[in-house]
């Protein structure tokens, strides 16, 4: 028997749905084997995952709380992606947003302006951080994958330095935390859970971005640049402006995610503001093929992984690393699955000559 790989010239639409679903199922299977290996019944584990996320009020709201930042980072990756850019730096942009918002929360006055200023500074800090690779790409054609990735480390260590040093709180013993924010610097919460107003705003942002990139002339220009940069230039669209602006919008959204996490969830600046939401945004954007509405769907999936992961951890004592493995596998299978959207595979002799 022979396996034949052919390049697809036409990809049926259904393939775009089958592949992601199959990728996820395959990774469930693999993780199942891993779970078995450490003596946990995978079906039971997955059951716990689902019942936690959908069975309890706390779990259900927590699903939204975890999904919201992933929606935002998914968008932060998607918009540049539509212009043909890889923003691997949403994580760093998120950290800078968290830092700027915390700075405002801790040191600004009077209370009435603090929350709006936190939003503003969060957006601006994310933007500023994203503008560096954007500018370098536009001006010197420096590879944005490398520059955004490296800037993540700078941002993460910057925040770490702050919470171990200058911004460390007075009443936090030896933890790398800042002081708790005052009430006026905290996003309102509902239902007696951690469900905060930022979640709703995240959904609204996704819808707004959907409108921006599918309905406006700006979105059209971005699409042309992503499809054929030379045609864009021929159409009088400045490729550089689009590159920089797409990065800025992405950075702003990631920066807002950072603000939202400190102000809605942690209520202070701390090391590890995000468990890697910025990186999670990449497979989310890929799964959604850059469409903001699909980003919401894909983000829920990864939100479920986070919520379910911690449930599995507490119930079975599974190391948290398994959740990371799970995520990594999903990403791998999605990227691998992309191969199947471009190539088709067939088995057997019947295709051979004579």
């Amino acid at each position, binding site marked *: 028997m022979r396996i034949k790989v052919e390049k697809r010239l036409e990809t049926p639409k259904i393939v775009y749905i089958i592949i992601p679903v199959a990728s996820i199922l395959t990774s469930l299977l693999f993780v199942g084997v891993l779970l078995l290996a450490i003596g946990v019944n995978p079906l039971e584990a997955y059951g716990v995952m689902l019942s936690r996320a959908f069975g309890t009020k706390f779990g259900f709201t927590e699903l939204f709380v975890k999904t919201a930042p992933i929606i935002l980072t998914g968008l932060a990756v998607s918009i540049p992606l539509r212009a043909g850019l890889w923003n691997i730096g949403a994580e760093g942009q998120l950290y800078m947003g968290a830092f700027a918002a915390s700075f405002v929360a801790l040191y600004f006055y009077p209370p009435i302006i603090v929350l709006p200023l936190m939003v503003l500074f969060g957006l601006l800090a994310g933007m500023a951080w994203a503008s560096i690779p954007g500018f370098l790409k536009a001006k010197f054609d420096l590879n944005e994958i490398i520059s955004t990735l490296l800037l993540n480390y700078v941002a993460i260590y910057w925040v770490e330095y702050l919470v171990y040093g200058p911004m460390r709180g007075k009443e936090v013993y030896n933890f790398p935390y800042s002081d708790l924010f005052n009430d006026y610097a905290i996003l309102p919460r509902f239902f007696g859970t951690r469900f905060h107003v930022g979640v709703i705003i995240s959904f609204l942002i996704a819808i707004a971005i959907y409108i921006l990139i599918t309905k406006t002339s700006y979105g*059209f220009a971005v699409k042309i640049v992503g*499809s*054929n940069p030379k045609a864009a230039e021929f159409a*009088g669209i400045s490729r550089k402006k689009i590159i920089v602006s797409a990065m800025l919008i992405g950075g702003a959204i990631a920066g807002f995610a950072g603000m939202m996490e400190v102000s809605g969830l942690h209520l202070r600046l701390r090391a590890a503001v995000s468990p890697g939401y910025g990186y999670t945004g990449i497979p989310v954007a890929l799964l959604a093929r850059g469409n903001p509405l699909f980003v919401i769907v894909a983000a829920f999936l990864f939100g479920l992984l986070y919520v379910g992961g911690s449930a599995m951890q507490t119930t079975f004592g599974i190391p948290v690393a398994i959740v990371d493995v799970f995520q990594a596998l999903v990403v791998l299978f999605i990227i691998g699955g992309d191969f199947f959207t471009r190539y088709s595979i067939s088995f057997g002799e019947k295709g051979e000559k004579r």
Partner: protein
Amino acid sequence: MRFGGSNLVSSELNSENKTEDNKMENKKILEMKGITKIFPRVVANDKVDFEVNAGEIHGLLGENGAGKTTLMSILYGLYRPDGGEIIFDGGKVEFHSPGDAIKAGIGMVHQHFMLVNKMTALNNILLGYRTPKDPLMDYEWARKRVEKLSKTYGIEVDFDEQVINMSVGEQQRVEILKALFRDVKLLILDEPTSVLTPIETEKLFKALRRMSEEGLTVIFITHKLKEALEVTDRITVLRRGKNVGTLITKDTNEKDLARLMVGREVEIVIEKKKKESGEPVLRIEEIYAKNDRGLPALKGINLTVKRGEILGMAGVSGNGQKELEEVIVGTRKVEKGRLIFNGEDITDYGVGRRVALGISCIPEDRIETGMAPSLTVEENLILRDYVKFTKNGFMDFEIIEKHAEKLIDEFGIKTPSPKVAARTLSGGNIQRLIIARELSRNPVLLVASQPTRGLDIAGIEYVRKRLISFAEEGKAVLLISEDLEEIMQLSDRIAVIYEGKIRGIFDREEADLEKIGILMSGGFLEN
């Protein structure tokens, strides 16, 4: 019995030539039976029967979108047919990829070449090939083999030159050698001559005849009836996805072929009235510019395009035409000199501003610069004016669709709907799309590079008429073309470009082909 004038010679050869014998027996090398290919809402091939004899040159003709490229892509394993079977070289075959087709002995040269720019010709030819010393590369062996092929068929290529430095014609020769290197028995050429100069075309035909003499079979797609009549043995005509007839070349003529292709009588009469031209619209003053490789491409161009005229620019491609086009459009930097448009110095204006002033352009590189392949037809039709199709920053999809429907109708763009990706259109229909967009913008100046390249007869007629009426409306056209016939037919004045300089400008009355030919090849006229 083949190529026109040399009837006697070739029939004399017949008795000694084995392949000619084959041909007499009409030994079939290829039979495609009942081939059907259905794309969403388009039947590209409709139960096509197509037969090719061993050793013949078989012409494949048909209007834009008739299904020629699709049929050949199926044969080459790029598409899977929805119905029908292929018998090649004595057995039923089913190709899943071009690799399969090549292994079976079928090669194809696409209109858009698939070469690696930064590699030498030799390396491109060897790409993916296993030489006898595999896994080591046996360059010695390969070079000898390629040189032999090159000599046998008279296909000249500098094997150590990088592809990026080659003319289109030379790149095409590399592609052909690449196929021949893999010992193909059947070579498919999809519109090879549309990018060639007349001299290069003649050379290609010589090579094709050599191949045929050596027993190779060639399928040759073209829109130029004269070429088909000159070089082929038999001709098959496709119309709307159906085979409407296979003819023996020597028994047919241009008129019959045209009728078969279009389904009705076609007569191309293009009349151009003599016109007084008016005010200058574009003044090009001492323009210097470099090409992509950073070498001087334009060396002090002076030229004026006037209101109401078509200024034809004759020249062998690669002499600065593309750079001049880009300088006017605004996508190429000017080193020195000025551009004056309607009295306004636009040298430093960006592309967008020039678009707004009314400068249109049908670019030479259609696919690379003219369109965004993954965007829909209607989106591509507003590519350069999308801002005009907005309401308060929002795209007005209703008007965009209406606009598209109007242009699709007016310019005869064959597409199942305005909402399909432009990439799925046939070559000639992509060309129509770009022409429709650029003409419908109602510009003041149109730069048209090879505007009829790749179009079928009706399309050529239509575009030429549009250009003339466009000029008659008092607008200006700069027509850049390698097709001297087209230049002579349409132009009020003719400028000849050679090595980045204008070597002469003639009024239509005083221009003759001989003078232009001398200047185009770098010669001088005696006064």
